[in-house]
């Protein structure tokens, strides 16, 4: 009898180890060892939310928050798996703006923040940012916006000067206030310096695309890219620059792209606010980079939303925390400490924001440039297969750029591939 017990204990513990594997992640709510219940929060990247959570816990001693940070790709994969399985998701999860699209039809996995009081703070946020976080019909709020990535034009003073244009941010913005003027600028840069005006086809296409009212899908999630003149225009504009020899072939995040930043291999970089850190990282000794507004408006790249899972049993406590965490006051802290660009226009009026300057970028108030851009971003519905369409258009543009593909044929092929792939949905 004793033997049997021993063996069953052994087998039992093996099973317990197995069970432990699956229940490890799902500590939501149940992981408390008496006293106050722990709110689990998953974040990615460097947000500084750990420190802010500490601060919140000091002010609210009865709340316990456990912030867990993971690398961005793993974070979203883990979260998707947990939400798909219906268990194991944290109380609060940060979701990147591009990733939130795939949850559009999965309202049953999230708490509707409108039921928790999100309507009261709606007015604090930029309208377009807020709308990305809600369902197409506006009835369901997935998450509160954290930071945003409004886009502006980074430029190299030396290249711009060589091309015969003013290097002062305001003057340059004034002389490049239309895409037509920018096209002329591209020609001048190519002629006088032999350098491309942009690093690659992607960012120039995105810049034009982001100024359209609709992109690839309409609010009913129907594919409209083929008949959307604005997107075709962005495509044709990029092709026209490629034909001028004004588009570089330095894909994002490659070594040559970073090196180009340090050496000034291209004149402008149409990038978001968080690209400041990337530029500084790649070109730490350069004093040539400056920032000004982009022609005809701005777009947004990046930013995140804080969601609360349906399975969480402390939705109210979690909501109180995230409402505080992304309130205009706390976002000012995140901006100062981590450079996260606020999604709350009220923050732009604060003294610390108005008086902000950056010596790296010639001592100008970079925050003001991006704040102006943030107010110009269009409210666009993206849809869950946005990146699929984007990827195929990029393939087409890259074929035109480096393999000498025929622009019309490449466009048609891309449309064909998009339709083929969307049949799977």
């Amino acid at each position: 009898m004793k033997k049997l017990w021993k063996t069953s204990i052994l087998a039992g513990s093996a099973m317990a180890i197995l069970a432990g594997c699956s229940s490890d992640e799902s500590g939501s709510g149940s992981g408390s060892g008496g006293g106050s219940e722990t709110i689990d929060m998953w974040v990615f990247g460097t947000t500084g939310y750990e420190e802010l959570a500490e601060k919140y816990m000091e002010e609210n001693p009865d709340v316990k928050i456990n912030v867990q940070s993971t690398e961005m790709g793993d974070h979203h994969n883990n979260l998707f798996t947990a939400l798909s399985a219906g268990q194991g998701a944290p109380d609060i999860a940060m979701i990147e703006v591009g990733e939130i699209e795939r949850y559009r039809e999965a309202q049953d996995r999230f708490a509707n923040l409108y039921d928790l009081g999100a309507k009261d703070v709606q007015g604090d946020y930029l309208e377009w940012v807020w709308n990305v976080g809600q369902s197409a019909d506006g009835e369901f709020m997935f998450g509160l916006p954290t930071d945003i990535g409004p886009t502006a034009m980074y430029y190299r003073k030396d290249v711009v000067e060589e091309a015969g244009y003013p290097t002062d941010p305001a003057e340059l913005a004034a002389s490049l206030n239309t895409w037509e003027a920018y096209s002329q600028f591209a020609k001048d840069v190519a002629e006088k310096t032999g350098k491309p005006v942009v690093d690659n086809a992607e960012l120039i296409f995105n810049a034009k695309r982001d100024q359209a009212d609709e992109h690839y899908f309409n609010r009913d999630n129907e594919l409209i890219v083929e008949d959307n003149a604005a997107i075709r225009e962005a495509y044709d504009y990029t092709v026209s620059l490629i034909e001028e020899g004004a588009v570089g072939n330095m894909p994002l995040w490659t070594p040559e792209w970073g090196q180009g930043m340090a050496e000034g291999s291209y004149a402008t970089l149409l990038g978001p606010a968080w690209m400041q850190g990337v530029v500084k990282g790649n070109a730490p000794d350069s004093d040539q980079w400056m920032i000004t507004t982009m022609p005809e408006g701005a777009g947004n790249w990046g930013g995140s939303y804080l969601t609360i899972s349906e399975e969480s049993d402390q939705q109210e406590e979690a909501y109180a925390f995230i409402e505080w965490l992304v309130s205009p006051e706390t976002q000012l802290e995140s901006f100062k400490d981590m450079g996260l660009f606020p999604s709350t226009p009220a923050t732009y009026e604060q003294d610390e924001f108005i008086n902000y300057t950056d010596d790296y970028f010639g001592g100008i108030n970079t925050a003001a440039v991006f704040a102006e851009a943030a107010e110009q971003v269009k409210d666009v519905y993206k849809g869950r297969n946005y990146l699929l369409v984007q990827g195929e258009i990029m393939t087409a543009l890259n074929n035109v750029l480096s393999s000498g593909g025929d622009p019309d044929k490449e466009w048609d092929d891309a449309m064909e591939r998009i339709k083929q792939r969307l049949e799977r949905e």
Partner: protein
Amino acid sequence: MVSNSEKYTEKKVKRSMSQEKRNSIAGYLFVSPFFILFAIFGLFPMLFSFYLAFFKWNGLGEMTFNGINNFTIIFNDPIFWKSIYNTVVIGLLGTVPQLIVAFLLAYALNAQALRFKNTFRVAIFMPYVTSIVAVAILFSIIFNSQSFGLVNSILGVFGVDPIVFTQSEWGAKIAIATMIFWRWVGYNTIIYLAGMQSISSDLYEAAKIDGATLSQQLRYITLPMLKPFILFTVFMGTIGSLQIFTEPLIFFGGNLREEGITVVAYLYRDAFENNFFGTASATAIVLFGIIMIFSVLNLLITNRLGRGKARKA
């Protein structure tokens, strides 16, 4: 009294029966961890993927029955056929030269005259223990599309224009095949080396006395004796090359282009980038079929070779 002893023996018999039963239960419990693990992480996903192949599912919403539509979709997709073609071409480019070179390297390492044998052995095996991601990143720098990329600058010496490797039909395949070659050549070398060391030196000595040249020794002693090792490496190489995945994924940096997309990369893109789990599962089943066909072919050839040998003996 009598009845008592009867009871006693009866009890004893009962107990010994249940002891046997207990032992067998204990036995099953001892082997159960593997089967439980296999059922959860092996069997269930496999069966579920068969099931999913006939459904539409995005991972979050409802599953809807789709019949054989998923198969129709992928069979009508030129990129799917391209991915199979790519897999086979990259597999051949990466495996065939690799096995030949591994054989020659093993032969050299086995030579009596060679000094610092262990150093060379370790050096040749080293790539195998390198992280596959590190390998892919390293090789994307070597096969950089700019004129300063290592391969492009060498080509530049001969007056060849820089190749955009990620967008070139053969450039992409050669780059990916090179990564596979570099990583696996050491592994196969060690296997061949082990095989060569198991060949008795008597055979070589006898051959030398009979006046066999080096190439004759290689052809009539080393190669035939190594047959089981060669078959093993061919077998593993075939299955491995049908599953090429990480190299193209990192080489393309996310945007998998048709010049180098492999079957597994194709199904990964469907499943984990776009959450089209139905067609991804259908692709997995087709891949399963392809691997089965290749394995059966391998097996048939192996059996035939084995039989041939037996007849000779």
